[in-house]
Every structure is written in C-alpha cells, then in structure tokens.
C-alpha cells in the first residue's frame, strides 16, 4: 500500500497493519467511520483515510446482562435494531442521524438530549479495543458493568477524537426500553421567561429522560409552532405516567409532540452550518442562552438546561459565530462542533492542561500520525466529524 491509498479495514489486524505502516513512514492517517466527513473548514492537515465502516457487526450480546459488544463501524441504527428486539436500547442520541457509527460516537464523546438523564458516552462505555499509534492492539475496561481494574483508559480514549488510538471495538451498557415513551411540547413566553421555565421544569415532580429548550425559530423549523418551547420526554412504567403529566402543568399548557420530534431536532442543522456549544453552570442558563443569541436572526438555539449547555446553529458566513465567540469570552465555555475557517483563524483558545495533553498524545501516538490537526490535539476542536454525521 502507498501512503496516499485509502485503507478500508475489515478486521482489527488491518487497522494495526495500517497504523504500523503509517507510523513507520510517518504518514498521517485520518480515521473515518461512515465517511460522512463534514468539512469544518478547520485547519486539519491532509491525511490518508483509514475507513472503519466495514469493521462492523455484533461481537457479543447477552440481553440479560444489558451489555453489548460491537465492532466500531457498527451504526447506531443497527445497534438500535438489534437491541429493540429485546426491549432494550443504547441511550445515546448524538446530533446527526443514526447512520453514524458507535466508534465515532465514543471517539468524539458526542451526546444529545438523552444525556439529561443517561449521561454521555463516558457513562455508557464499559470497555474498548483500540489500536494505539504504534500499532499495538490493546483492550481497556471490560464487558461488565462495574470495573476498576487498572488505570481508566476507556475514559481517556472516549472523546480523544482518534488522536490517541483507533477504536476498533466497543462494549456499552444498555438499558431497558420504557413501556411508555412520550414527548410533550410546552409553549413558553418570550426569552425573558426561560430562566424561570428551566427552574420550574427541573424542580417538577417528574423524571423526564430528556428536557430540551428550543428557541422560536428552531421550533418553527421543526413544526412546533411559533414560540419557544420546552420539549419534555417522559418515559417509564404506565402506572407512573399520569402523575408526571400532572406535575408538568406548572410549566403551562402542554401538547403531545410528534413521535419523530427528537430525530428532527438532532438532524435540524442544514449542511454547511456552523455549530457552537456554549456551557456554564445550570443556573446560568438564561445568561448562556442570551450569549448564544448573538445578533443574528439566522441563528437557531436549543439547550439542555440540566447540563447548562446551549447549542447554536447558524448558516451565515461566520459573522454570527465570531460575534458569539466574542460574547462568550469569559462568560461561558465555547466548544466549536463545526466552524468556518475564519473562526479558526481568529486564533486557538488555549486548551486546559496543554502540557499533560501533549505528553499523553506523545505517549500513545509517538509518531503523531493519528488524526493530526483534530481535537483535542489542536484547539479549538474543529469537530470535522460530528458522530460521522
């Protein structure tokens, strides 16, 4: 194989061979899941694609254990299909579609609205098989739900954007699907009221599995009316639902939402959008929401109040993103999921603990061949691959 010939791995050994070869030649590799690369305009350097889409399928699934082991190129939709047969699910809903792979979801630590109740990939991942930058095949964690044996490389590789190793196999914790799963749409008053609405929603005697705030323009784009809305996803045993619906009345009149509202929200961003994530303490959500408004009517916002995270989607050329980035400075944390080149050119925000991070990078990818230019190797995270979108 030559340095610039794409590799399509069918087995872990193929990945190990490709990485070893690239390390020997010092030719960079770009790890690709389903190949739905999104051009962020980020200054990621050119590299030979190492495709994992053919490295897919179930390795082990014992429904009674509520754990699942799959190859990294398995799509979220394939996982959903196989687990649904047993009344179970992997409670991760990263933005994008279920065409994305589990490997990319873990590698980018991408989470969606369900993180409100179920956490992020770091909470779902139990163990990994990884090819590190020297071509070694290693295993981290295990296949059981509780495990403190050894240093926690599972957490280290989760969210490392393929810069420390290529994830080839993933074991995740599953959950039983609730009997009832319904989403309520609560129309809210103007933006001024959102702080109070978030407090009321988080304090209500209900246990929603997702609670998401959506601004008026995005609500309209999703077909949910003309005002800002709170989406409340209630789930559980049928016996528990009545009281939870009652408890939501404090928020105002609620209507049952369309069943595919979450898919619509996750896939809302038009191609080529800039997507920024702003975060602060949950009780600062109203302020973060304001920062995220920027000055452009073309931006959409939605938020997970319990996590203090506001996500902004904009299609304009970059002014909106730049304005928001300036406004965020010192007020909240800005993470760029996808950003135009102009924003990157504005200069990298310093990564926390850059020296530790650089030493970790050197320890696991000494030749510096894995996803060079990608977060968290460079800052800010260019996020060229949003869960493989």
């Amino acid at each position: 194989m030559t340095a610039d010939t794409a590799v399509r791995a069918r087995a872990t050994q193929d990945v190990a061979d490709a990485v070893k070869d690239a390390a020997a030649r010092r030719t960079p590799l770009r790890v690709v899941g389903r190949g739905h690369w999104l051009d962020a305009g980020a200054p990621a350097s050119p590299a030979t694609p190492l495709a994992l889409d053919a490295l897919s399928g179930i390795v082990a699934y014992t429904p009674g254990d509520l754990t699942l082991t799959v190859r990294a190129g398995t799509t979220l939709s394939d996982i959903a299909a196989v687990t649904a047969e047993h009344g179970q699910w992997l409670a991760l809903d990263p933005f994008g579609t279920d065409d994305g792979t589990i490997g990319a979801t873990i590698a980018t630590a991408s989470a969606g609205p369900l993180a409100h109740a179920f956490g992020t990939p770091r909470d779902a991942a139990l163990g990994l098989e990884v090819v590190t930058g020297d071509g070694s095949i290693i295993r981290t964690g295990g296949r059981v739900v509780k495990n403190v044996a050894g240093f926690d490389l599972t957490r280290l590789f989760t969210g490392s954007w393929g810069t420390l190793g290529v994830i080839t196999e993933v074991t995740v914790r599953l959950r039983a699907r609730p009997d009832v799963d319904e989403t309520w749409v609560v129309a809210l008053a103007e933006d001024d009221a959102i702080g109070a609405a978030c407090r009321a929603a988080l304090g209500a005697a209900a246990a929603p599995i997702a609670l998401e705030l959506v601004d008026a323009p995005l609500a309209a784009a999703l077909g949910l009316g003309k005002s800002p809305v709170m989406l409340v996803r209630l789930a559980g045993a049928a016996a528990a639902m009545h009281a939870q619906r009652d408890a939501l009345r404090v928020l105002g009149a609620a209507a049952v939402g369309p069943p595919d509202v979450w898919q619509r929200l996750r896939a809302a961003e038009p191609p080529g959008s800039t997507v920024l994530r702003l975060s602060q303490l949950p009780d600062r959500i109203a302020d973060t929401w304001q920062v995220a408004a920027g000055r452009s009517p073309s931006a959409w916002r939605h938020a997970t109040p319990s996590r203090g995270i506001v996500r902004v989607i904009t299609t304009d050329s970059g002014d909106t993103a730049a304005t928001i980035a300036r406004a965020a400075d010192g007020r909240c944390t800005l993470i760029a999921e996808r950003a135009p080149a102009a924003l990157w050119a504005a200069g990298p925000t310093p990564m926390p603990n850059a020296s530790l991070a650089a030493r970790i990078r050197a320890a696991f990818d000494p030749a510096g061949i894995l996803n060079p230019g990608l977060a968290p190797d460079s800052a800010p995270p260019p996020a060229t691959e949003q869960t493989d979108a």
Partner: protein
Amino acid sequence: MTRDELGQALRAIVGPRGVLSRASELLPLSADGLPTYRLPPSLAVLPSTREQVIDVVRVLARERVAFVPRGAGTGLSAGALATDGAVIIGLNRLTRIISIDPVNRLAVVEPGAVNVSLTRAAAAYGLFYAPDPSSQTACTIGGNVAENSGGPHCLKYGVTLNHVVAVTVLLPNGDIVTLGGAEGETPGYDLLGAFVGSEGCFGIALDITVRLVPNPQAVRTMLADFMSIEAGARATSAVIASGILPAAIEMMDGPTIRAVEASIYAAGYPADAEAVLLIELDGLEAGIDDEVRRVQTMCTEAGARTVRIARDDTERARLWQGRKKAFGAMGRVAPALVVQDAVIPRTRLPDVLHTIHEIAARWNIQVCNVFHAGDGNLHPNIAFDPHDADATDRVHHAMREIMRACVDAGGTITGEHGVGLDKLEYMPLIFSPESLDAQCRLRSVFDPERRANPGKVVPVHACREWLASPAARALT
C-alpha cells in the same frame, strides 16, 4: 537526605505533631482494611492544610522520595500501604466541606472529608451524595476518588466517576492542575476520567467537586429470603432483565446472615435462610408500589419464602445496617478476613456462585458471600486464623481459583476495591502485556518518576520501559 533529615524537613512544614516516625506510631498505618498485609512506612506526615500538603509534596519531589497518599485507610486492596519504605501522606485532617451549591447541586470538599459527612451536610437541601461504600461512615471522598468507589446504590446512581465534576490535583512533581470543571464542558482529553480510580498513582486531590442528587420522593426497601443462593441469584437476574432499575439489589448468603444475626448488627434476617436479597426501589411516589409488587412476584416465582417490605425508616435502617456492617460481623468468626471483588456478567450469577461453593468445599473452607448482586459485583470472603498455616494456604488457593472462575465467566478482577497490591497478580489474567504497557504509559505522563504510590495497580514487569526507580530506593 537521611530519614531523620527528611523527618526534620517535614516537621518544619507540619509541626512536630504532624510527623510520625516511631515504629509504634507507624503501626496503625502499616495496614488498611485488609488484615492480610502489613507494610510499615518509613515516615508518615499528616498535614492539616492544603498549603502544607503542597509543601510536603514539593519537598518529597525535590528529594525524589516516594510517597503514598492515604485517607481513612479503609481500603480493601492494600492500596494505601507503603512499599519500599515510602512516606505516607495522611490526608484525613483535611476534612472540610468547602461549599455546597444547592441550586446547581454541587459540593466542593477537601480530600479527607468523610463520605457520610457530605450527605449529612447536603440533607438540609434535600440532596445527598450517591456513592455509598459500606465504609461510608469512615472512608474519605479523596479515597473514594482514588479507588473509584461504588457502594450498594451505584446500581442505579453510578459510581464515583459518574459523580465527580472536577478535581484540583497536586501532581507528584508539585505542579497543580485542575481536571474537569463545574462551569460548563471541559474541552480536551478526559483527564478527570483518567484520574478517578488511579489509586493515588497520579497525584493527590487537593479539592474535589462532586454532584449531589435530590432525595427520591419515595423509597421502598424489601427483604426476600430464599432456601438456596441460586434461587436468590435467579430472582436478581429476573429483576435486572425486567427493566426495573432498583436503587440497590444486595445479596447475603446463609453463613453471612448467621454471622450478622449473631453480632451487634443483627438486622432481623431469617437465620435459617440460605440467602436474602435486600432490594431497594426509589423514585417518584407514583408507580413505585406497582414496581414493588412486580419485584415481589419475581422473587416469589424464583422461590422466595417471604418478601417483607420495611414499614418505616427505622426498619429500613436496620435492614441496611446488617448489610453494611456484614464485614465487621465476620470479626466474630475468625481474626483475619480475605475478600474478593470480582464482577461477573449478571446472567452468570447462579452458575458462578455454584462454582464458588464447589471450590470452597474442595478446599474445606467456609466462604461467605455478601455482595452487590444487581451489578454482578461479588464479594466472596473467607474468615480464617492467620496463625494456622495450613488453613491460610487453603484459603489463598481457594481465592485464586475463585478469581479464575470469575474471569473465565467473562468478568473482571475488581469492581470497586481497586487493584492495590492485593490484585496485582491477577492483572495479567484480564490484560495482555500490550494493554498493561498502555496503562504504564498513562501513569508515566502523570508521574514520570513513579514516586506516587509505587508498586501498585500495574505489575512493574509489565512496563516495557520500566527502570528500577531511584525513588523506591531513596529511603532504604
């Protein structure tokens, strides 16, 4: 620097009463909760303030002396013991709860804060700290972070990892870094996730920010008793597979029940039963009694003789006390105790418990089982007399076979107690040389000189680049 000179240098930081150097003073620090190991440190230093901790570590860094951070010493893996004459840094004088933010449900604590003291302080706001190891009345949150501790309620609420938001870490070289953060997401590698559970090998937590959880609206605690441990295991598997997620499912076998009932911790468990399950459901009031009935039915179908529901908080507390003090109750049986911490896939509970029973019979020893059944986290333990060489030998043989059986069933060697020294020999059972080497590489990033808790977690021969550390020999 000689040991005496180092003692002087440390006294200059912490005062004369903050350094222990006589053999009699060091004796309590030469063991942890596992009585089968005894390793005295060369010195122990007990700082009272954060600044003193920093100064102590910087002196040790300058002198290239190895150290072991230690909390309450309740660990069960010989992890807080000093190998090769390292210095123990006792952190249990730093007990402050620095702040509680009830709105964002966060607390900041010093590493020596006792686990239960945080839950007590948070109670005023209707909140609690979820990880609840059985030693929670004594163990420290710093120690919990080091071990990534669990506890009965982590079945539903998650382990320490899932509750720590940020840690300010004093690295072994004396540098201070903040990992994670409460104010929004943290970009970059998940260094916080790597630090939690690093068993004191990556540095010392100076302060820890944790999540608090709202008290559940309703709690129901049930006790089901069975005439065989397999029946109890079947009930556990049935509940887990049903999709109901209890806050806890704990099992105790017949010998444990009888030890508890004969002790001051008697909880009213039926003494003739071969297994009891302690099942706690919590959450919203609405629907909880429906789940109780479903669990009751599953237990009965699996063979439960009776399923009793605690009528009030007093009865609930009594049922839990028996479980949480079960290891203490074993003290009545024999002077020494070994305990394992393997985790197996939950569907394998009945057959692995059967295998453990067979192994015990073959080696003619009495294994007690008290464990987190809902997670598949076993704690087979054996009380024995360490002065009886033959018995001790049989106990250790049996323990090794039990560990192998758990690994063969697809399990892991430790679910919450940590590797420490005790499980070092088992690490190659579950990790290849390449995988162990990767763990060594991570350790070297945080502690290139391997002075922080040397000799623990990863067998040294597994580290390709390992060189005999000068730190480990500095004080010998």
